[in-house]
Structure formats: structure tokens, C-alpha cells
């Protein structure tokens, strides 16, 4: 019956979802890939996946985490295919890089960061494996549990990745770590 046809007449649900999540999907993708054109492609792919898969989603209450999960995974896939960044999760290498950067002394740095743009530039330097949880936590305001769900990893891993990302950021900003642990 055409009146209830999903394709023809029943797409208000999708319009609602699109309107609600367009902002976060696009900017989450952008903050992961830092490329406007790629973020556009990712957004398009994400919403088409949502359209095709929404009715298979059994737990509709978890739609936010589901959408962000698709966004993150699509972004990682796109980056991998573009080969523009290290997101193959060579964890050993990534942790070595993080440790090198964390041990970097801000006093010796020529970087003086106070503006928000500069904070974002530092965030963009953080490897994806640590930056993506930061984006989900601060920009999308997901809980640790939701991020764990989204990234398919234990909550403890989420906490440590966010902590390490912040630690790196603090060092680069020259902040007192002890006064700002959260």
C-alpha cells in the first residue's frame, strides 16, 4: 500500500534523522580526516548506510552511538583507502609515537598555543587511535560506555586513550597536569 510505502511516503523518519545528525556526522568525519571533500563523501556514505540499515537496528535507543560508530568506521575506511594517515592501528608504533610526544617538554617547544585554532591543530596531530575517542567524548558528548560501544573496545581502553590524548595536549600547551586531571 503506497500510503505506508517506505520508499515513497514514509521517509520522514529519515529526514528527521538526517536533520538531527547531519552536523555531528559531518564534523565528526571532518575532525577525523581533516579534509572537507572527504568529510562530504563520508557523510554521504554514512547516511546511505543509515537509510539502508536503520530497520535492521534492533536497539533504536542506541541510535546515536550506532550512527557515530558508522561514522568512525567509515572515516577510518576512507582514510585507509586514501592512505593519508596511519589508522591501520599499528598500536605499538602509535604508542611509541604518543610516548615520544608526551615526554616532549613544552618549555623547549617553540609552540606557544593559546588560541582555540591552535588547540585544534594540536588535536589534529594526535594519532587517530587517541584522537577519535577525544572527539566522541568532547564533541559528540558520548559517555565512556557509549564510546566503548562505538569503538568496540573496553571502557578502560577508552579512558586510557582519552587520558593519553589529554596528557599529550597538556604537555603541548604547557599546562600543569596535576591541576587538571579529569
Amino acid at each position: 500500500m503506497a500510503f505506508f510505502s517506505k520508499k515513497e511516503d514514509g521517509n520522514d523518519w529519515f529526514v528527521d534523522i538526517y536533520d538531527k545528525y547531519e552536523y555531528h556526522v559531518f564534523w565528526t568525519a571532518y575532525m577525523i580526516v581533516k579534509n572537507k571533500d572527504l568529510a562530504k563523501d563520508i557523510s554521504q556514505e554514512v547516511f546511505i548506510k543509515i537509510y539502508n540499515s536503520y530497520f535492521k537496528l534492533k536497539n533504536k535507543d542506541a541510535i546515536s552511538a550506532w550512527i557515530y560508530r558508522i561514522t568512525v568506521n567509515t572515516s577510518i575506511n576512507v582514510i585507509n583507502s586514501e592512505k593519508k594517515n596511519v589508522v591501520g592501528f599499528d598500536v605499538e608504533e602509535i604508542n611509541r609515537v604518543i610516548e615520544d610526544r608526551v615526554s616532549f617538554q613544552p618549555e623547549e617547544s617553540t609552540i606557544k598555543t593559546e588560541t582555540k585554532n591552535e588547540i585544534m591543530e594540536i588535536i589534529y596531530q594526535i594519532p587517530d587511535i587517541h584522537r577519535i575517542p577525544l572527539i566522541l567524548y568532547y564533541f559528540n558528548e558520548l559517555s565512556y560506555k557509549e564510546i566503548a560501544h562505538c569503538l568496540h573496545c573496553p571502557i578502560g581502553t577508552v579512558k586510557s586513550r582519552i587520558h593519553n590524548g589529554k596528557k599529550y595536549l597538556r604537555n603541548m600547551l604547557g599546562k600543569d597536569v596535576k591541576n587538571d586531571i579529569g
Partner: protein
Amino acid sequence: MTLDNEIKSAMLKETEKFEIPSDIRERVFGEIGVSGKRRKSFWETYNLKGLVTSALIGIVIGGMITMMVFYSPIKESLYAQEKFPQNSNTVNKVQGSEYVKLQLLSANSTNNIEEDITKLYPKYLPSNMKLVRRAKTEDGKGIILDFSGNPDDSPLRYIHMQIIPKEMFNIESHIGENVTLENNKGFLETIYYPDGKTLEMGSISYEMNDTIILARASGISKDELLNTIDSIKETKHLLPDHTDDSALLETVSNKILGEDYYTSGPPNIDEAIKGIEELGLEYELVSIMSVEHAEGYDGTISGFTVREGVVFLFVTDSKSIKLPK
């Protein structure tokens, strides 16, 4: 301004760099072949929404009453029992959503756990618990051991254990978990047990020599966890080379579910079993547990674990199995 606020503010500021390209919307709705505008519904057009909604609510309530009167939950229980013949001890009562754990017996076992894990395997484990997963830590310098098992009608029971070099232990990464230093030897204890007996996401850290054992657990007593750790402490050879199940785990999960499973949601039991059988694996249902106890994975696949060719597959399936409360 705190760093938290600075990060949030910087990310919000980032979104002001430019407008979201309007052609995304056109491309999305063009691709799926529908209008991107919200259609004014029949209900809205004729202002019938309230009336129809009331009628629908009445029908739904009437239907629910009918279901409660005529539809016995025993039918669903029998369905589950018939579909998955099993030892009754392995089926647990569930609340709301369900988890079904399928134990898959692989014909192509590639790992021999006894060769490389014996030295680390605890002599003591709480009853019905088994080693279900081993992997390297992210830095590759430590070992992760997961134990699981659900006897009787207890909620999900597990121990997640990390054995790591002391220098890799970062107490700051555990901030927020109520870490307290118990003594000068570095014994840390972070336990939550609301009823004073059963751990709920409890964790314990032991320091011995140059090694830390960090254990999280749920559904077991504090003593059981301590005894498990004690029994592993006796070993002198920590951190040996060991087999990492991750690659096999990924291969199996991709084969069974497809690489895009995250976009389509979890499979139902029939689909999962079909995939398993296509892989030529034997399987048996070993337990059902409430998804509500699976921290972080409510309503979705929780993951896969492999040991000695045994795959533990967690699948939600609200369609075929609904056990009575």
C-alpha cells in the same frame, strides 16, 4: 578555563570554519531517490493526529491485555529448549534483552594453549570459568587473559586480567576508579561490591617484582578473584611469548558476520548458525545471559574469542529467544 572546556570550545569553534556543504543533502537524498523535505502527513493535513493516536493507543493496550491473557511465556521457553537442546544448568534466566553464547568447536585448531600459556594459567579458577581469550596488550608488552563462565542463574561472570611490566602501569589512567594505595609494596585495590560480597566491575592490581597483574571481574566474590590472582602469582615466568588470538578472531568474525556487520546490526541466531555451518564448524549453545550485564555492549555483538579452536560468539536475538522472567 579548564582543559576540558578548552577542548570542547575549540571543537565547537572548529565547526564555524565553514558551512556544511549543502550538496551533501542533495547527494544523499538523490542517491536513495526520495525528497529531502519533510512531507506534511495525512494526519497533520486533516488534524487527525490526536484522534488517531488515541485510537491506536487503545488498540495497543487491548492487544497487550490479550497477549497477557492468552500468550504464555512458556511457549517461548519451549521454543528455545527445542531449538537448542542443552543442559538445563547452562541456561540462565534473562531480563529484557538476551545474549546467546554459542560455543563453536573449530575443526581447524591452530593454537595449542598448553604450550605457551601453562605458566600463566591460574591453578585456581572459580567454578565453571574457562579461559576464553588471550591477546597481547596494545603496546605488545603485556598479556590479556579473559575468563568467563555462567553456572546456575548468576549474571555474566568474567575476569579480565592484564599482566604487564611494571613500567607500563600508569596509575593516572585509572583515575576515577577510586584507586587507593594499600601498602608500600604497591598493592592496589579498586573494588566495588555493592552487596559486600559480589564484585561488580571490581578490579584489583597486584605488584610483584617487576610485574603488575590488573584484574577486573564481575559476578564473582572478592575471595574468588584474590584466589585466582594468588594462584597465578606463584608462577616465576611471567610474560612469555604467547599466541595472540586477535588475527584468528578477526578472521572468524568477518567470515561469519561480514566486514560491515556494524552497519547492519547483529545477526539473529539463524543467520549466525548458517554462517557457522558454512565455515564447517561444530557448535553448541552453552549459555544465555542478560545483555544488561555486558558492559558497553548492550544490544549488539559483544565480540569473539578463540582458544584452542573454540570460538565464543555473542549474539543478540530478541526474535527467537525470550525466556520467562
